[in-house]
C-alpha cells in the first residue's frame, strides 16, 4: 500500500524539480531579448527601417478581421502580438497598473481613452502620420478626446423593439422608463454604468456627462422607479431576448440592435426624441510605447476602407469613414437601416466623455439602483 503511493510522489517531486529548473533559466532567457531591445530604442541613430520590429496590441476578440494581423505583417514586416480584453474597465485597470507599459496600440471606448489620457498615459496622436485619417468624417474629429484616440467605430444608443408585437411606435426614453402596461416586465436596459444612467439622464433633459449631484439624485429616483417594470439589466443577450419575444422593448446600442434584426426583420431601432449619446470606439497609443512608428503604421492600416467595410458588414457598426459608408451595398443598408444614420445626425447626440471626479458618484448611484428593491 505504501510503495505505490511513494512512487507516485517521487514522480511528482521529480517533475516538480524539472518544472522549477525549467522555470528559472527561462526567466533570464525571456527577459534577455528585452534588454538589447531597450538599448536599441534608446540609441536613436540605428540603421534599422523605422516601421519594423514588433508591436503589441489589445482588442476585443473578433472585433477586427481575423486575417488582419497576418496581412499587415506580410505587407510591412512588423510583427504583431495580440492580447485580448473583455471590457474597457479591465484594459484600463491593466494600463494603469503597468503605467501604460506593454502595449503599443489599444482599442477602447472614447470616454475611457479620455480618462486614461488625463492620467498622462497616452501619447498625443499626430494625424500627419496617419494619411488614412483624411477619410475620417470631419465631425468625428471635433470630439475633444480624438486628440489622443483615433476613431475606429461609432454609434449611438436607442430603443430596439419588436414592431410586430408592440402596437405603437416608441420614440421616447419614457417608453422604456415608464412603459405602457402591456410592456411592463418585457423591457431590458443596459447594465454598464454610463448606459444604465443614460435613459434617465436624457429623459430628464440632463447632459449624459452631468456632474451635478442634484440632477444625479433625480436620475437615481427615476431609475429605481423604472426598475419595477424591468425584465433585466442586460448587456450581452438583450437582442436574443427580443428575438425570442421574452423582451419587447430594450435599450440597445445601434450595432447590437442589428444583431437582433439579423434574426428577425420585425425588429426596429429608434433614437429617442430627447436625444441620446454618441459613443466612439477608438485606438490609442500608450505613452511608454517603444515602437510608435510601427503603432502608427498599424493604425493607418486599420483606417483603410476595406477594414472599415469589413467592420460595417460583419460587426454591423457604423464607421466614421466616408470611403466606407459610401461603399456599402444597398442590401445591407436596407436590412440594417441604422447603418445609414448620417454623421450630422450622430453628432447631434452627446459624446460620452470622462466625468472625472463624478465617476465615483456614478458608480455609487449605479450600485444603489442595481441593489434597490431586492
Amino acid at each position, binding site marked *: *500500500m*505504501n510503495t505505490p*503511493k*511513494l512512487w*507516485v*510522489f*517521487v514522480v*511528482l*517531486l521529480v*517533475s*516538480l524539480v524539472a*518544472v*522549477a529548473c525549467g*522555470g528559472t533559466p*527561462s*526567466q533570464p532567457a*525571456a*527577459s534577455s531579448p*528585452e534588454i538589447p531591445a531597450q538599448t536599441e530604442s534608446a540609441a536613436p541613430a540605428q540603421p534599422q527601417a523605422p516601421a519594423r520590429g514588433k508591436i*503589441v*496590441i*489589445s482588442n*476585443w*476578440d*473578433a*472585433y477586427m478581421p481575423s486575417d488582419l494581423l497576418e496581412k499587415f505583417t506580410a505587407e510591412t514586416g512588423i510583427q504583431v*502580438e*495580440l*492580447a*485580448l*480584453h*473583455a471590457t474597457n474597465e*479591465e484594459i484600463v*485597470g*491593466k494600463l494603469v*497598473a*503597468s*503605467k501604460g*507599459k*506593454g*502595449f503599443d496600440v489599444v482599442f477602447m471606448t472614447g470616454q475611457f481613452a479620455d480618462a486614461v489620457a488625463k492620467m498622462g498615459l497616452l501619447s498625443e496622436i499626430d494625424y500627419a502620420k496617419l494619411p488614412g485619417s483624411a477619410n475620417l468624417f470631419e465631425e468625428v474629429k471635433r470630439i475633444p478626446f480624438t486628440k489622443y484616440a483615433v476613431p475606429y467605430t461609432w454609434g449611438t444608443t436607442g430603443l430596439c423593439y419588436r414592431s410586430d408585437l408592440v402596437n405603437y411606435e416608441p420614440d421616447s426614453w419614457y417608453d422604456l422608463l415608464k412603459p405602457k402596461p402591456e410592456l411592463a416586465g418585457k423591457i431590458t436596459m443596459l447594465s454598464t454604468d454610463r448606459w444604465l444612467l443614460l435613459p434617465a439622464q436624457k429623459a430628464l433633459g440632463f447632459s449624459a456627462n452631468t456632474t451635478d449631484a442634484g440632477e444625479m439624485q433625480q436620475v437615481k429616483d427615476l431609475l429605481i422607479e423604472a426598475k419595477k417594470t424591468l425584465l433585466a439589466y442586460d448587456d*450581452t443577450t438583450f437582442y*436574443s431576448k427580443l*428575438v*425570442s419575444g421574452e423582451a419587447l422593448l430594450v435599450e440597445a446600442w445601434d450595432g447590437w440592435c442589428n444583431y437582433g434584426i439579423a434574426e428577425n426583420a420585425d425588429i426596429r431601432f429608434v433614437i429617442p426624441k430627447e436625444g441620446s449619446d454618441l459613443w466612439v470606439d477608438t485606438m490609442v497609443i500608450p505613452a511608454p510605447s517603444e515602437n510608435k512608428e510601427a503603432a502608427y503604421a498599424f493604425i493607418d492600416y486599420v483606417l483603410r476602407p476595406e477594414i472599415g467595410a469589413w467592420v460595417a458588414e460583419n*460587426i454591423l457598426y457604423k464607421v466614421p469613414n466616408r470611403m466606407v459608408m459610401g461603399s456599402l451595398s444597398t442590401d445591407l443598408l436596407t436590412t440594417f437601416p441604422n447603418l445609414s444614420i448620417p454623421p450630422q445626425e450622430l453628432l447631434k447626440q452627446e459624446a460620452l466623455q470622462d466625468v472625472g471626479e463624478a465617476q465615483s458618484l456614478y458608480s455609487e448611484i449605479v450600485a444603489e439602483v442595481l441593489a434597490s428593491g431586492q
Partner: protein
Amino acid sequence: MRSQTWLRFHSSLVYIFLYAPILMLIVLSFNRSGLPTAWGGFSLYWYAELLQNRALLNAALNSLLVASGSTLVSAAFGTLLAMGLERIARNLVLDAFVFLPMIIPDIVLAIALLSFFTFIEMPLSLLTITISHIVFNIAFVAAIVRTRLSYFDNTLEEASLDLGAPPLKTFFKITLPLILPGVIAGSLLAFTISLDEFVIAFFTAGPAQPTLPILIYSMVRFGVTPDVNALATIVLSLSALLILIAQRFGGTEGFF
C-alpha cells in the same frame, strides 16, 4: 426510516441544483443549431468546429500549462510550509500571513502582482501567470495539508528515527504517506482554482498567450461561438476523470 427518505429527497434536490446547469451545457454542446433557445438536433458539429478553432485550443493548452505548473510548485512548497508552520514556528502572526493570499480580493492581488512585475521589468508571459497562481495556491495547499498534520501521530516518526532511519527516509517512508491525502486534495483544489482563475491571469498575462478564461471573456462582446460548450464539456469530463482517479488512489480512507 422516514427521515432517511427525506434526506434522500433533499440530497437529490441539492444534486439537481448543482448539476442542472452543467447538464444543460453538455446537452447544448450536442445541439446542431448552436442557439441556446432552439434545439436543432443531435450533432457532433461543434466538436468538429472546436478542432478547427486553433485559438481556443491554444488557450486551453495555456490554461493546462499554467494550472499544472502552479499546482506542482505549490504542492511542494505548500506542504513544506505547512510542516514548518505546524512544527517549528507556531506563531499566530505568521499563520495569518500565510492565509492572506486566500483572503485578499483577486483584483487587489492582481494589481499588486502586475505592479511588481512592471517594477522588476519582468516581461509578462505564461510564466508570470504561473508565478502569480503559485502565490495563492501555496496558501490553499498549506491550509489543507495543515488540517492533515494537526492530527498527525508524532510517535510514528519518533519510532522510525529510533529504529535508525535517517530523517529524509523517515519523511518519505512515514510522514509523506500519512499526509499524502492532504497533499493530493490540496493539489486538486489548487489545480481547479488555477484552471478557471480570470482576474489575476488577465492582469499578469502577456500578449498572444491568453488562458482559456481570458479568451472566453474577450469573446463575449462579438464572438461567442457554441464550440465553447464543446470545449467546456471536454474539460469537465477530464476534471471528473481526474477526481475519480484521485479518489481511487486515495483508497478507502478518502481525502476530504
